[in-house]
């Protein structure tokens, strides 16, 4: 059963427009819990309170404010905050196209599918063109009163928008200093490289499953029927006293053996 579109927009590249429908590409599969009162298992309610008096403040009476470095609080009125909201628009403005490598991983946030509304020819042509060019588009749009920046990417023959984080949010490795220490041994480096080669493969997302989630749900099912399995504590790992070189060599031997028998 097809999902419902969250929003409708129009990809704008120069004067070219492409009507699209936007869908969330993420499905939440995580196990969600509610907070309960220990004694009567009653689901708890959250309230905002004045910590000095303990009085509950209803949401209608809650104000918003900013607290600066000096501990000064500036209260902001709802009207003032509303004025800051970006103007609504259906445009997904593409400002430029850059190579895929121009964007580091840390910036990617949430993916959305774009499905064609009309002018289907252009939609698939754009997807193919982006793939051939190995480029991504940098996009700006306003959705539900929020300003977004994202990457327009080709995906499985169609198009996706992946929202991006803001410049100040991502710490770049270039702002950090690598840990120092004695120079690395050539032999150890060679062994490490060989070990990586022995364990080489392709990234196949279908190969990986969230098994913990499955076990958790199974446990919950059993517990609800009064058949909870016993709890065992994890034992701490034993430290190895072997040299790094010996350990690498042993790993390589084991990895090669495993590959052969696979």
């Amino acid at each position, binding site marked *: 059963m*097809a*999902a419902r579109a969250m929003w409708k927009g129009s990809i704008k590249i120069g004067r070219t427009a492409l009507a699209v429908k936007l869908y969330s*590409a*993420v499905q939440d599969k995580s*196990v969600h819990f509610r*907070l*309960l009162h*220990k004694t009567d298992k009653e*689901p*708890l309610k*959250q309230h*905002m309170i*004045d*910590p000095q008096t303990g009085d509950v403040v209803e949401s209608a009476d*809650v104000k918003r*404010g900013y*607290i600066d470095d000096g*501990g*000064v*609080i500036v209260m902001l009125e709802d009207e003032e905050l509303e004025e800051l909201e970006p103007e609504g628009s259906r445009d997904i403005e593409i400002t*430029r196209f850059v190579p895929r490598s121009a964007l580091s991983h*840390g910036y990617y946030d949430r993916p959305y*599918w774009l499905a064609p509304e009309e002018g289907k020819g252009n939609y698939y*042509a754009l*997807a193919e*063109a982006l793939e051939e060019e190995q480029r991504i588009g*940098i996009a700006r749009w306003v959705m539900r009163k929020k*300003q977004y*920046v994202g*990457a327009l990417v080709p995906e*499985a023959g169609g198009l996706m928008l992946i929202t991006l*984080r*803001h410049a100040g949010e991502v710490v770049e*490795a270039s702002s*950090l200093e*690598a*840990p*120092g*220490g*004695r120079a690395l041994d050539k032999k*150890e480096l060679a062994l490490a*490289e060989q070990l*990586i080669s022995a*364990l*080489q493969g392709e*990234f196949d997302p279908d190969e*990986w*499953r*969230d098994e*913990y989630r499955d*076990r958790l749900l199974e446990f*919950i099912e059993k517990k*609800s029927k009064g058949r909870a399995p016993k709890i*065992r504590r*994890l034992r701490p*790992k034993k430290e*190895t006293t072997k040299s790094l070189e010996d*350990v690498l060599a042993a790993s390589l031997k*084991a*990895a090669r053996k495993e590959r052969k028998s696979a």
Partner: protein
Amino acid sequence: MPSHASAQRERARDETRSRAFWSGTITFGLVSIPVNLFPAVRSHGVALRMLNEDGVPLARRFFCPKQDREVADDEIVRGYEIEKDEYVVVTDDELEALEPRKSRDIDLRRFVPADEIDPIYFERSYFLTPAGESTKAYRLLGESLDQNKRAGIATFVMRGKEYLIAITAEKGIMRADTLRFADELRSAADVGLPKKLPKAKAADVTKMRKLIDAHAKAALAEAELADEYAEQLQKLVAKKERKHEDIYELPEEAEEAADDDADVIDLVEVLKRSLQSGEKSGPRKRARKAALRKRSTRKRKTAGKR
């Protein structure tokens, strides 16, 4: 009962570790690399606080509607709704016990070309810092990953949730990106895209390529990833401060509460210290950790400071 001095040293060691999102071990074949995991992403610039009409910062509390009162932390449990209004309680111990023995380690058994991972899988970015006395194994793995342009793939369980992770290295610093599992992403078919995609006309593709070329650049412009909303908000705040409009003072009790917020830690500072914390042991290391602890008890900056 541990001596006061050793308890202090233990606390200092824990100081760095406790700021880390997680501490554990990367296993690479039989090699064990103790690491700390830190977020590489700061929460966005301008967090607004909830206040009452007198400007007092509010706190969040939990209430039992049945008994019509606030409940303390030790009266709270987590429950899974197995049927409508029927809950099964799951304790921290149970969540932990469900982790298989090896899941506490990030066991790298597969290496893939780093640039082959589709960006739709990237969820959250973290930095890995060496947690052991020696940084050798850390640097060795980092160097090998960087040189060969590879990502190590593994799954591990942290705080009651399983993560798929890709570990890469750049200029001697290792980072970990959590990845979405395949079933957490909707397929093209799920959003109504046809299984058999129509083939685009060659002429249309050429037209699109020309359009792309006309707007092609080598990199992003710095301004493109700016947080405009945050900038506008800062301007509004500055204006109101200048005009002394709607200004309130943080009450003393609230100051202490603010210090407990996770957001107030200077992430880059903590990362820098953690990256340099290995390979030097003895009095210097202890002194550095004591300094870190001292600095943390001073009033910290709130979220929103650039």
